[in-house]
C-alpha cells in the first residue's frame, strides 16, 4: 500500500515536471526540430514553393554533387574564411596585444576597433561600395580608394576592384575581415587580461625576453581563446551573405557566389525549393563537420 502511494507521488512529481518542461520542449520542437525535419524532407522533392510536390528521391543531391557552381561557391566561402582566419585574426590579436599594454588612449582605441562589427552589414557594404566606386565624373575618381591612389602618385593601381574577377572576391574578403576583426579583438583582449601577471614576472626572472615570453607564456595561455575565435570566424565567414548582396548585388557572374547566395538564388530566382533545401542540408553538414574537427583540435590543444 505504502509503495503504491510512493509511486503515485513519484508519478505526480514527474507529471508536474513534464508540464513545466512542456512549453520549452514544444517551442524547441516547433521552431527547431520541425523546420529541420521539414528541410531534410523537402530536399527529396521537386517543389516550386507552393502547389504539388513531386518526390524525386536523391535526385537533388545527385545534381548537387555535379553542380560546379555550388562547389565553386564553397571554395569562395572557404577563401573568405581563410583570409579572415589569417589576416583578420592576426590583426585582432596584434591590436589586442597593443591595447593590453599601458598605452595612451587605450580606451579610445578599444571603442574605435569595436565600431565596424557594431555596424550593420548593409551599412558596411554601402560604405565600401562608395569607397570602391570605380566611376569617374568630370575627370575625377568618385571612389575614395581610386581617388587616393591617383592623387598619391599610384595611378597604375587605380582599379575596378569589385568589377574584376581577379580582385572581386579578395576585396570582399578584406572588407569582411575589416568588419569582423572587432569581435576577435574584444574576445582576445578579454583573454589576455585573464592571464596571470605572475607568469610574466616568473618568465622575466628566468631571463626570458619579450619574444620568448610571448611564445612560451602568452600563446599557450591564449590557445583556448584563439580556438574559440577561430570557430566563430569559420562559422561566421562561411555564412557571409548580406555583405555580398550589398556590394555586388546578384554577383559578379559566379565569381562572388557563396553557398548562402546559391541557396537564396535557388529559392528566389529559379523557385527550386527542394534543390535549395538539399544545398542547405549539405552546407549544414559541412559546417557541422568543420565545427567538430575544430572542437577535436581544441580538445587536443588543451591536453597539450
Amino acid at each position: 500500500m505504502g509503495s503504491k502511494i510512493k509511486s503515485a507521488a513519484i508519478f505526480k512529481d514527474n507529471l508536474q515536471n513534464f508540464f513545466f518542461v512542456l512549453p520549452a520542449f514544444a517551442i524547441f520542437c516547433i521552431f527547431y526540430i520541425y523546420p529541420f525535419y521539414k528541410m531534410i524532407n523537402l530536399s527529396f522533392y521537386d517543389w516550386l514553393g507552393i502547389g504539388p510536390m513531386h518526390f524525386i528521391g536523391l535526385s537533388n543531391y545527385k545534381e548537387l554533387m555535379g553542380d560546379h557552381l555550388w562547389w565553386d561557391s564553397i571554395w569562395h566561402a572557404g577563401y573568405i574564411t581563410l583570409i579572415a582566419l589569417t589576416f583578420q585574426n592576426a590583426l585582432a590579436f596584434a591590436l589586442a596585444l597593443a591595447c593590453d599594454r599601458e598605452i595612451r588612449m587605450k580606451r579610445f582605441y578599444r571603442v574605435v576597433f569595436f565600431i565596424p562589427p557594431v555596424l550593420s552589414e548593409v551599412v558596411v557594404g554601402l560604405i565600401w561600395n562608395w569607397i570602391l566606386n570605380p566611376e569617374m565624373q568630370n575627370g575625377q575618381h568618385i571612389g575614395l580608394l581610386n581617388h587616393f591612389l591617383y592623387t598619391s602618385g599610384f595611378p597604375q593601381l587605380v582599379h575596378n576592384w569589385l568589377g574584376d574577377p581577379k580582385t572581386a572576391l579578395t576585396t570582399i574578403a578584406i572588407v569582411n575581415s575589416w568588419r569582423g576583426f572587432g569581435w576577435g579583438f574584444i574576445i582576445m583582449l578579454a583573454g589576455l587580461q585573464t592571464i596571470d601577471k605572475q607568469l610574466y614576472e616568473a618568465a622575466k626572472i628566468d631571463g626570458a625576453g619579450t619574444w620568448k615570453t610571448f611564445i612560451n607564456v602568452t600563446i599557450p595561455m591564449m590557445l583556448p581563446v584563439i580556438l574559440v575565435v577561430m570557430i566563430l570566424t569559420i562559422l561566421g565567414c562561411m555564412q557571409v551573405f548580406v555583405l555580398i548582396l550589398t556590394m555586388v548585388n546578384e554577383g559578379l557572374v559566379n565569381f562572388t557566389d557563396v553557398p548562402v547566395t546559391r541557396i537564396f538564388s535557388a529559392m528566389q530566382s529559379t523557385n527550386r525549393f527542394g534543390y535549395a533545401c538539399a544545398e542547405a542540408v549539405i552546407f549544414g553538414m559541412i559546417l557541422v563537420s568543420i565545427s567538430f574537427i575544430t572542437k577535436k583540435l581544441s580538445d587536443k590543444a588543451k591536453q597539450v
Partner: protein
Amino acid sequence: MQKSVIWCCCLTLVFFAGCSQPPKPSNKLLLWHWMTDRNDTFQKLALQYQKETGIEVTVELFAPSDSYSQKVIAAAQANVLPDIYGILDKKSIVAVFIKAGLVSDLTAAMNADEKSWKNSLFDKALADKRFDAGNIYDVPPGIYGVPIDVTNEQMLYNKKLLSKAGIKTPPKNFDEFIKDAQALRRVGITPFVSGWGELWLLDCFASNYAFNIMGEDKIFATYRGTVKYTDPDWIKVFNVFAQLRDNGVLIDGIVTKGNKYAEQDFALERAAFSFNGSWCVNVYHDMNPDLEYGVMPPPPMSTDFPLKIWGSAGSSFVVNDQSPNKDKAIAFLKWLTAQDQQVILARETNNLPSNKQALLGVSPILGEFAKGMVQATHPNIWPLNEDPTVSEAFDKGIQDIIIGEKTPSQVAQDVQMVKDSQMNKGKH
C-alpha cells in the same frame, strides 16, 4: 495541483483551437502590398473609400519586395492570405496560386456593365493577368488580377549631356548609338548606365534585341528546344554586349551595379543614357527635379523584325478566393482603378496609370513612356517562358561577355549546355 494541470491543458487546447478559427464576413478588408513609394497614397485612398462606403480597408506594407514575396508564399502555405494581395512572381507561380484556390477569377466582374471595367484598363496590362483557353499552365481561362498601374522599360537620354557632345537628336539605330557613345567619351562623359547587377534588367535589355534580331517565333522555338542558343542570331544578340563593351559604352562596374545606384548615376548626370522602367520618373524627380531628359526605345540593330520592349501591368492586386469578403474586395479594386483614383495615384506617385482615361492627367515625360506601350511585350504574356536555370546561365553569360571573360560564341555554347541538361531532365 490537479486543477492547475487541467487548466494548463485547457488553455493549450484553446490556444491551438483559436489558431484555426475560420474568418467571418465583415466590413473590413485587409490589403498587403510592397510599394513603399505608394503607401501614403494607398492609405489616403483607403480613408477616402471608408468615408464613401463605410468599408474599412487596412493597408499593410511589407518591403522590400523580396521579403514581401516570401511572406506571401508562406502565408499561402498557411492559408492566412489577406483579402487583397499581389503575387510578385512568374506566371507559372501565379498559376499555382490560382490552382490552389487562392486567387479569384475576376472575369465576371470585369465583363459586367458591358465590360466597362475591362475596357477602361490597358489591354496589355490586363493580358498579363489573363489566362487564355488552352494555356500551358492548365489554368481555367479568366482574368485573375487587376493592374493598378502599367510600366515599361525604355532608354532615357540626358538632353544637356548629349548637347555637350554635339549630339542634336537621340540615336535612331544601334550604329548611331555607338557613334554617339564615342562622341560622349571624347568629351569625358560616360555614355550608358543601367542596374545590370540585377539580372532581370539585363535579361530585359537582351530580349529587346532578341526580338529585333530574330523575331518572336525563333525566340519561342529556342525555348521549346528546337533552335539552339548557338544559332548565329543568338550570337548576334550576345554580340550586342561585346560591341557595347568594346566601344566603351558601358559605365565601369555595370555588372554589379544595383538599379538604385544606376538611377543615382543618371539623375546626378554621371551618364548620358540609361535603361530603366517608367517608375524612374518618380525617382529622378526626387533626386534631381531639374534633370532634363527624354525617353526612347533602345536603338534597333536590325530592320528585320520590330524591336519590342518589356511593358505590362506594373503592380497589380489579386483577390483571395478564400476570403469571405471577396465581393467587397473586388468592389474596392474596381474603385481603385476608376479614373479619379487613378489620376490621384498617377499624380502623387508619377507612375503610368492602368486606366486609359487617367493618362490625360500625367506629366509629358510619362506621356512619352506611355507611347511605348504600343510596342510592349512581357514574359508573362508569352506562350511559354525559358527555364529559369537556363535564363540564369544566359544572364550570367552576358555578364561574362561584358567583363571580357568570355566571347559571345563561348557563352552561346555554355547556355546551350545548360539548356540541353535541363531538356534531358524534362524540366521544360
